[in-house]
């Protein structure tokens, strides 16, 4: 079936199978590799994208359902002004290690700030679904706090 949606600011039209996930369509059909596969069942957060302003694990979204929606992926988000500030804060604080989970953190933080999250506790709850085995989240939260001060 044919699905049309806005991807990173441009309209795309793509043929998808009814059972295909947004994750697979983004990665395999549209070649957007910034969306990482970590578990495929919504447990790790590595494949988080922004769907109509909300962070979602793209492995749990059927591609057929995103018709008419707006999807933002990490490679795009990183190049926006806010995205760049998030990445800079992460770099400053040493929040990036292996980097496999990082794009998912980036999109989750981006969506939270757009939604109006301004305090560390709310951000921590927003990040509950993003797993990281490298950092213990300490420098990620340091980056978040630096960023929130900056945004406020």
């Amino acid at each position, binding site marked *: 079936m044919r699905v049309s949606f806005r991807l990173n600011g441009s309209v795309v039209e793509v043929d998808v199978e009814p059972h295909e996930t947004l994750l697979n369509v983004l990665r395999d059909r549209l070649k957007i590799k910034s969306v990482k596969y970590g578990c495929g*069942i919504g447990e790790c957060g590595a494949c988080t994208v922004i769907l109509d302003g909300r962070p979602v694990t793209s492995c749990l979204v059927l591609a057929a359902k995103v018709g008419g929606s707006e999807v933002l992926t990490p490679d795009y988000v990183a190049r926006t002004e806010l995205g760049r500030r998030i990445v800079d804060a992460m770099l400053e604080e040493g929040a990036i290690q292996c980097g496999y989970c990082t794009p998912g953190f980036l999109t989750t933080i981006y969506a939270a700030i757009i939604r109006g999250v301004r305090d560390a506790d709310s951000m921590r709850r927003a990040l509950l679904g993003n797993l990281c*085995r490298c950092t213990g989240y*300490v420098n990620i939260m340091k980056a978040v706090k630096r960023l929130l001060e900056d945004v406020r």
Partner: protein
Amino acid sequence: MFDFVGKRFPRHDGFVKAAGLAEFTFDVEVPGMLYGRIFKSPYAFARVGRIDTSLAESMGAVVLTPDEVPDALFNPRLLSLEEDTFKDWRVLTKTPRYVGEPIAVVAAPTEDAAQRALEALRVEFEEVYEPLLDPFEAMSPGARPIHERIVRGRRWVEVRNNVAAEYGYSEGDLETEERRSSVVVERRFHASRRYHAQLEPKGAVCKIEPDGSLTVWTTTQTIHNTKILISQVYGIPMNRIDVRKVPLGGGFGSSIHTNLVTLIAVGLCLKAGRPVKLVLTREDDMVHDHVGFEFYMRVRAGATREGEITFGELENTVDIGAHQVQAYPLLGASLGWFVSLYKWRALRYYGRAVYTNKVPSCAIRGYGAPEVTWAVETVVDEIAEELKVDPVEFRLRNYRGRGEIFWGQGPTVRSVIRSDGVPELMAKCSELIGWKTRGDPRSKSGRFRRGIGVGRGFHTSGAGGPLSGAVIDYSGAIVKLNEDGTVDYITALQDHGGGTLDAHAKIIAEELKVPPSRIRIVWSGTSTTVYDVCTHASRGVFVGGEAARRAAAEVKRKVLEYAARILDAVSPEALRIEYDRELNDAVIFVEGAPEKRVSLSEVARTAWQRNWGSISASVSYRATVAPPSFTVYFVEVEVDTETGIVRPVRVVAGADVGTVVSPELAAGQLHGGFSIGWSWATGDEVAYLRDGVPAHRLSMTDYKIPTVLDLPDDERFTVVFASTYEPFGPFGAKGLGESASNPVIAAVANAIYNAIGVRFYEIPMTPEKVLRALRGGG
């Protein structure tokens, strides 16, 4: 003191990683590639009969079966010398020995088609045996041999009682030392099997080049050993294999060897004659591919009334699962950790690795040190308590420090400790946590009880030493000055994410006096790099960094030689080199003659223009020592006596890493080290059902790792670095990665004891176990 070492610079690959642009194995695509899917054994121990591939092949799939892979056994980990390498693996097997062991593999043009072909395979099982899941049962007389014969080096050896390998050692007069001890404590410990839970599942992409050579992209901590093993298994000359270095989405030991998936992908690619991509799903990765070692330990130790440690004994039974990855060296390393913890006047060690019908174990961050350290640090805490000596004081009196012999990974890796920050760290960290106010568990009451515990440990920095020893350990580096004065750094050494290569860039920068931004870390492969053994044993900065420094020093020597020609100096020795902030370049000058100056970029350009040749160096470096990086953890926990849930309240982590090359990234190692240690202490456990099926089938919902809500943030996490300098390290630096997690379980267990007065001898210390203990279950 330094221009770049110790300063904060954003990591070179940070933006690329955050934006998701870093190309991991999972992201690699080759035109025309097929997708592979593995037929995994549903049984923990069985014998395969006929494999009917006709239906799958009629669907257009390529199928590879056990009869089509090389018959020789191998060990996926090339580290020990050949004669100490125990080989019991095949690429595909007709005798699956754990649930998930690969039997056959299919390839098709799409993942869906591959899955359909996989489902069309007909595999007959001639026999299904009762699996042996418990190591002690496996060793009992009459137990079915999991392997009858394996290959050690190049000869066949029989396996008796399912014991895969043994290791014994003793030193001093144990009986005499025991007689003069006024306190003797003996305890038995059990450390669970734990999954690494690296965020990137394993995978491989293999391609045949037009000239018939192979290019391989894969998750690995060692591209050169991967190349060597592919060559050994498939009989392909090494210069016909290029294993490319790709970013690794977390290691923790899970890719310390050549992954089976890599060898299977190569076999499939060779048969199909087309590129193949074979990646594991999370379920494949966590349920069927790898775990860390499971330990059963008995520790016995004594001390005199005056607080002097006398003897120590460690008996170590390791459940390794169905195949050996590095079981034999693990037994030696466990001994090394044990020996190097305290000044035992006499010691006895016996270790054995036992086969069971479970997923094969490989190293997990620390390679036995977290488990041995936990057991010993618990016993030492108990001895100190019985002697009524402050546990910190007791450790300071008895640990192996400066001037003592350190064993690193085992008896063949001995060197003298020259840098030691333990006294400084103990003093600073105990002060910061409020050690003196921790109180006695008997005086604590109420639902929420807090306690403070200490754990001290270390890890080696590599496995180098003055003698060649039993394991391979050396690194290589190529540093090349381009014609415009920019630098290419070409290395096989893998960065798991800790920032090892950023540390190298700073080390090269420091040597050449050019900013780190001038140095490009080149993504390369085995064809274009010199040998590096592996990023393991916390050797990346200490050994790999020193290789890089030496290559840079060689480049500097040539730069100075050419600068002497340019400046008309009598010899390069008359010249000085320093970083010029304004030029953002190195300048070479004659002291006292300010007009005699030339920038490094100008030297590079001149050497090109005047046909003096390239300025580059290729270095291979073997460290003659393996110094310990010491760590000290003070952890405060809060135990909810109604739910049994333990929460980390505060962490003070002290690390003696010599010179700190990258402060924020080094701190990140301690944060992450605590995180994984906390996970091991309180949650991680791979359990099996009776038929050998892992109980956490449903993936990470069943096998939980800590989230951002479970761990302390920066306000409750303090990192202290010792002010030491390691004379053999690059600019005084030594290792860190594993020492960052080694003492964590010990500190947490001791803190729980200080809160509720209960000692745990089994990890994970889950809420259920805590509650049971509080209710009198012990």
